[in-house]
């Protein structure tokens, strides 16, 4: 392309400005065409459905009549809806906090040991993240089986009675969070480990000379240095956990008595299985506010780092 343009501009010196302009234009057209499949994909299969969900949420059950905020008003009067809101927030916030803590602690232990063994441990500890969640949740379902629970078998000698892992509301809530933490903590571990490696060793040396205890080293050196990674990993995870589907669907399917439903699984139950598409769409739209807040923070971080570079 470039060598075609070059003789042209030499031949018509006076015209060089406009032909250069044309070249620039052509380059940007080519670039646009190269990005076109991406643009179409996003517009047709992501942006349009997202907007369509808002429209759908304002129709009646038969999708024949526009009812405005009728579906939302109906949801607000249902106890199940408030249960789902409560459980979604509890599920997402508790799970993210525990994932972050366990990830942070495990990352420290891996960072502590000699570096030639680190690869092996890191590889072993990331396995829960690699197995497809639906498959590993099946294993948990079997570990939690009411009559053959292998975990209860291990707990029995410790004097713990039979625990109804998925049978009783409180325990079922605990179980879905536990499985989510099990799957997600290794991801935090990997992110924090990468961040730990980027903290300069001199800072720790200086802290040790100033007589800092291990706790002060973590609080005044490690945490401030890792603040960005901690925040962005937690925000990512909050989005993914809030929008979770697989774990709850496979482990409890929302039961017992809807106590473990979160927005995604309840929207599926109402919209696809219950046949009320508009109501299902309105349920799933309640995920948008928290997603928007998290996305704003992540974007701010990205633009900030972009301007630093």
């Amino acid at each position: 392309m470039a060598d075609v343009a070059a003789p042209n501009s030499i031949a018509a010196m006076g015209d060089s400005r406009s032909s250069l302009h044309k070249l620039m234009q052509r380059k940007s057209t080519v670039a646009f065409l190269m990005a076109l499949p991406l643009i179409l994909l996003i517009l047709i299969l992501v942006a349009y459905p997202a907007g369509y969900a808002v429209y759908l949420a304002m129709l009646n059950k038969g999708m024949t009549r526009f009812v405005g905020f009728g579906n939302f008003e109906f949801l607000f009067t249902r106890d199940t809806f408030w249960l789902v809101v409560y459980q979604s927030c509890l599920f997402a916030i508790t799970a993210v906090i525990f994932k972050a803590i366990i990830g942070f602690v495990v990352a420290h232990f891996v960072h502590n040991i000699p570096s030639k063994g680190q690869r092996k441990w890191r590889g072993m500890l990331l396995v829960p993240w690699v197995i497809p969640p639906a498959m590993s949740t099946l294993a948990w379902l079997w570990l939690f089986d009411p009559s053959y629970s292998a975990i209860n078998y291990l707990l029995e000698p410790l004097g713990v009675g039979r625990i109804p892992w998925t049978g009783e509301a409180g325990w079922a809530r605990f179980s879905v969070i536990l499985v989510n933490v099990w799957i997600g903590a290794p991801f935090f571990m990997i992110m924090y480990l990468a961040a730990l490696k980027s903290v300069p060793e001199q800072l720790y040396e200086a802290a040790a000379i100033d007589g800092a205890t291990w706790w002060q080293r973590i609080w005044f050196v490690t945490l401030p240095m890792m603040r960005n990674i901690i925040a962005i990993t937690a925000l990512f995870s909050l989005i993914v956990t809030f929008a979770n589907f697989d774990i709850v669907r496979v482990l409890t399917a929302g039961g017992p008595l809807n106590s473990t439903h979160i927005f995604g699984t309840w929207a599926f139950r109402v919209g696809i299985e219950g046949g009320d598409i508009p109501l299902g769409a309105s349920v799933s739209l309640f995920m948008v506010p928290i997603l928007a807040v998290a996305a704003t923070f992540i974007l701010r971080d990205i633009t900030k780092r972009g301007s630093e570079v």
Partner: protein
Amino acid sequence: MANVAIAEGATPRPNYGSMSKDRRWALRWSYFFLVLFAIFFLMPPIYMLITSLKTSQEISAAGNPWWIYNPTLANYIELLTQNHYLTFFRNSAIVSVCVVAVTMLISVIAAFALARMKFWGSATLATGVFLTYLIPETLLFIPLFKMFAWVNETFDIQLMNHWWTLIILYPTLTVPFCTWIMIGYFASIPKELDEAALIDGATWTQTLTKIFIPVALPGIIAATIFAFTVSWAQFLYPLAFTTSTTELVLPVGIITTLIKGDVFNWGQIMTGALLGAAPPLVIYAFLMDYYIAGLTAGATKG
């Protein structure tokens, strides 16, 4: 700062012995807790393996669930000679391979255009791509369900209940993230490299295939692994959009065919889940560094 550390560190010599003793204890505790965490993290997959090697009689017997008294491969043989499981595996494999191909084609080309050939709105588009990654599939499956019904009415194309529909849907989950990491990798390639190529008379296509793709190969491998694992593990879309046994993919297939009402055939379910988890695990075992590079790239690049 380093100078000060060395100068002051030299004076309290005798302290060094206790420091290294502290370190030894820290090391022991680290190993102790790592073993505990490794047991917690590896317990479910190990239990999958244990159960898959048992007979149904042994599974429902009252003995120690963590011990195999009569190891058998019966579950594996039965599952692999059953037509259904192999169908699910084949569907999953075809869908994942096609999605990876489509994803890499779209995202590498688009990322090149966005990172190097600026055009009107390209910066906004790059941010938009990232935002798309944050929109979860739990928000999109209901409108998509309705859109498919509309496509069927208008164009007479039935998108529901076909495994190939998933090839159209999965790129929405993989393309934004892959484009995002590829933009990061391409942006880190020095401008001088492609300017030199342009001066030598290379076209944009040649710059992409002869310079960018070879240099950014680690990023491309990481993105490929990501696209494969995401499409292999996806559960919601196949559950919502496919129902016949011939059209199902792995996770959904195991759950809908091996669980009959209240009867759980645990030996076969665990075997199926373990075999289903095998492809991502094998890829991970061989390409761990690329896998981890892909994981960390999302938040650290850009």
